C-alpha cells in the first residue's frame, strides 16, 4: 500500500466530517421544535461520549463498563464548583475532566494488570463503588443530589431557560472535538501501540511497545472527554443525583453506540448514536405513555437484530461490503 491513497482517504474523512458538521449545524434552521432539538442534543452528546469510550475500549481494547464513574465525576465536579464556589461551568467542565483523568490513571494502575473479562468486571465494581460513595457523601447532596437553580439565560453560567440552541452547538462542538481527537490519534504512534497491545499485548511488549503506559494514556484521555460530557449533561438537565449520572445504565449507553456503529472505528460511535438515541427517545415519547413497554420491545429487537446480523457493527459491515465489491 502506498501512502498516496491513504493520505487521500484521510483527507476525504476530514472533508466529510466538516461537511457533516456544517449540515448538522444548519439543522436548527429547519427544526424549531424544542423536543426534537432536545433529541438532537442528546444524540450529539452520546456520539461524543461513545467516541471517548471508543478510544479506550475500541482502539486500545480495554473494554470498560464503568465509564459512568468518569461521567459522574465530571457532572459532580462541575456542579460542586458551580453551586458551592460559584465557579462557571466553563472552568468546571475541564476541571472535572482533569479529576476524571487522574481517577482513570489511579484506577488503571492496578487494573491494567488484569486481562479480558477480569478487567471488565473491575471497571464495573469500581464504578459501583464510586456510585455508593456519592450516595453517602452529604456535602455533595448524598442521595438527594444537587439541584441547579436556573433563573435567567446566561452564557457566563452556561444555562438557558428555554432555548436548546446553545446546548445544541456546544454538543455539536464537543462531538466534533471528540471525533477530531480520534482522527488525530488514529494515525499517531499511540494508536498503533494501542492496536498492537489490543491484538497481542505480549508480542507488542516484546517489540518495544510500552503497553502499560499506552493503556494509561488511553484511559486518561478517554476519561477526560467523558467527564466533560458529564459536566455538560449536568448543565443541560439542571439536576444531578447519583442514580441519574453514575448509574450503570450510563456505562452501557456510552458503549452501545460504538458497538452498534463499529468498535474501534472512526465513524462507528457517531453512526451508532445517530440511530440509537433518536430511536430510544422517539419510541418512548410516542409509545411509552401506554405503559405496555412497546418502546423497550422495539429497542430490544433492534439491538438483538444488530447483534445477530451485524456483530461487527454498521461501519464494519459497510466497509466489508465495499471491499468485496472492489475488483
Amino acid at each position, binding site marked *: *500500500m502506498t501512502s498516496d*491513497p*491513504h493520505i487521500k*482517504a*484521510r483527507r*476525504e*474523512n476530514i472533508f*466529510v466530517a466538516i*461537511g*457533516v458538521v456544517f*449540515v*448538522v449545524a444548519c*439543522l436548527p434552521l*429547519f*427544526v*424549531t*421544535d*424544542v*423536543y*426534537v432539538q*432536545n*433529541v438532537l442534543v*442528546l444524540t450529539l452528546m452520546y456520539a461524543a461520549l461513545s467516541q471517548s469510550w471508543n478510544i479506550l475500549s475500541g482502539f486500545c481494547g480495554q473494554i470498560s463498563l464503568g465509564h459512568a464513574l468518569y461521567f459522574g465525576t465530571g457532572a459532580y465536579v462541575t456542579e460542586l464548583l458551580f453551586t458551592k464556589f460559584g465557579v462557571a461551568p466553563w472552568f468546571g467542565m475541564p476541571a472535572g475532566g482533569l479529576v476524571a483523568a487522574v481517577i482513570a490513571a489511579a484506577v488503571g494502575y492496578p487494573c491494567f494488570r488484569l486481562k479480558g473479562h477480569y478487567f471488565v468486571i473491575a471497571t464495573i465494581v469500581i464504578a459501583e463503588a464510586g456510585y*455508593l460513595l456519592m*450516595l*453517602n457523601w452529604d456535602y455533595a447532596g*448524598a*442521595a*438527594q*443530589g444537587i*439541584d441547579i*437553580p*436556573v433563573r435567567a439565560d446566561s452564557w457566563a453560567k452556561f444555562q438557558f*431557560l*428555554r432555548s436548546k440552541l446553545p446546548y445544541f452547538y456546544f454538543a455539536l462542538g464537543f462531538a466534533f472535538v471528540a471525533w477530531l481527537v480520534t482522527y488525530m490519534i488514529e494515525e499517531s504512534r499511540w494508536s498503533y501501540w494501542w492496536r498492537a497491545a489490543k491484538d497481542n499485548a505480549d508480542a507488542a511488549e516484546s517489540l518495544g511497545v510500552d503497553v502499560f503506559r499506552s493503556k494509561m494514556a488511553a484511559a486518561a484521555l478517554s476519561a477526560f472527554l467523558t467527564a466533560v460530557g458529564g459536566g455538560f449533561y449536568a448543565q*443541560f*438537565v*439542571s*439536576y444531578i*443525583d447519583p*442514580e*441519574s449520572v453514575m448509574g450503570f445504565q450510563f456505562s452501557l449507553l456510552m458503549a452501545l453506540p460504538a458497538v452498534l456503529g463499529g468498535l474501534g472505528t472512526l465513524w462507528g460511535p457517531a*453512526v451508532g448514536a*445517530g440511530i440509537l438515541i*433518536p430511536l430510544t*427517545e*422517539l419510541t*418512548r*415519547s*410516542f409509545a*411509552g*405513555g401506554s*405503559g405496555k*413497554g412497546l*418502546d*423497550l420491545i422495539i429497542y430490544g429487537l433492534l439491538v438483538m437484530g444488530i447483534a445477530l446480523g451485524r456483530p461487527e457493527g454498521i461501519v464494519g459491515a*459497510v*466497509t466489508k461490503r*465495499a*471491499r468485496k465489491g472492489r475488483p
Partner: protein
Amino acid sequence: MDDGKEREPRMKLNRREIMTGAAVLAAAPRVARAQGAGEILIGAVFPMTGSTAQTGLDAKNAIETAAAIINDKTDLDLPLARGAGLPGFGGAKVRVIYADHQGDPQKGRAEAERLITQEKAVALIGCYHSAVSATVSQTAERYALPFMCADSSSPSLSRRGLKFFFRASAHDEMFSSAMFDLMDSLRAKGQKIETLALFHEDTIFGADSANVQTKLAGERGYRIACDVKYRANSPSLTTEVQQIKSAAADVLMPSSYTTDGILLVRTMNELGYKPRAIVAQAAGFSEQALYDAVGDLLHGAITRGSFSLDLAQKRPMVARVNDLFKARAGKDLNDNSAREFMALIVLADGVNRAGTTDGEAIRAALTATDIPGDRTIMPWKGVRFDATGQNNGCDPVLLQYDGRKFVTVFPLLAAISEPVWPMNS
C-alpha cells in the same frame, strides 16, 4: 485504509437519512397538536416502564377516574363532580396525556417539554420519583405553568423557591411528624416510649426519612438507640437485625421498600426478635405484597399513610370513588393512587376557576384554592396552599394491621379504633 472512496456515498445516504428524519420529526408534532375543540389538556409524567411501572399504571387509572368524575355528571361531593366538564370553559372536557419518564430525571424533563410545547398541556402532574419531580417542576417553572406534585414526598421539593410548584399532599416531614404525634399521645396515656431504633435504606427516600426522624426525636425527647442504614435490595440483613435486636428499643421505625421489608421481618423472626412496636414509614409497609408474604408476623404493626378506606365509614363518597377506581384498576385505592386522584381534582379546580389557559392565571387561581376536607376523599382538613405551594392541611393517618386489614388509629379525626400498644399485646 483503502476505503475512503466508499465512505462518500455512505455519508450521503446518512446525511439524507438525517434530513428525512428531521422532516418526519418536524411534521409529527403538527399531527399531535390537532386536538378536539373544547378540551383542556393536562400532561402527566409517570414511570410507565421499569421497576416502578405498576405505580405509573395505577397513577394513570387514578387520574383517569378523576377525569371521568370531572367530565361526567355525578352526585359526588367533590369539586367539579356535579356538572359535566369545566364550567369555567363552557363545559370543556379535561383530557390527560401520559408520558413515561422511566425514573430518569433527564427523560422526565424532556417529556415535560414535549407535553408543554407539542401537546400544549396547560399544566403538569407527576412524577412519583422525587428526583424526576425536581426536573419536571423546574421545566414547568421555565414555561411558566403549574406543576402539581401528586405523590413525591421529598420535603426539599417545595423549598426551592419555585413559583409554579404545588403539592396538595404531605411531604416526609409531615408524615414523620404524624408518627411522633401518635407516640406523644400514647406517652401522654402512660405508655413507656423512650428509645427508638431507626432502620432505613440508603436512597433518597430512606435518607430523608431518617434525617427527619432523627431531628424530631431530638426535639420531642426520644433517644435513638440505634440508627441502622442498609444498602437497598441487600441480599442479607442479618448483621443489621443483630444491631437492632441488641439495641432493644421501644419502637422500631423502618423505612424500607417491599422486598427489603419482607427480608427484615423474616430475618427478625429467624433471630427471634419481636419488637415491642413497629411504626413504619409506609413504602413497603403499605404494600399488600409484604403482608401476603409475612403478614402473620406483623400483627399490630403500624404504618403511616395518606389515605384510608376506613374513611368511607364517616364519608360514604370515599367508597364510591374507590368502586369507580376498582372498576378500572381491579384493586382498591391506596396511599399513592388516592394522592394522584386528588392531584387532578385540585389542579382541575384551579384551572376551572382561572377560566383561561394562561399559566400565570392558573397559578393565581391555584394559590387561592380553598377546598374543605370533606370535599376530598382524604382525611385532610382541607386544601390551601402556602407561599411555597405546599398544602399544610393534609394530615397523614396512621394505620394498624389487625392481621387481616388496616385499621385507622390516628389522628382522632379519622380514627375508628384505639391503637393496640405494644403490638403483640
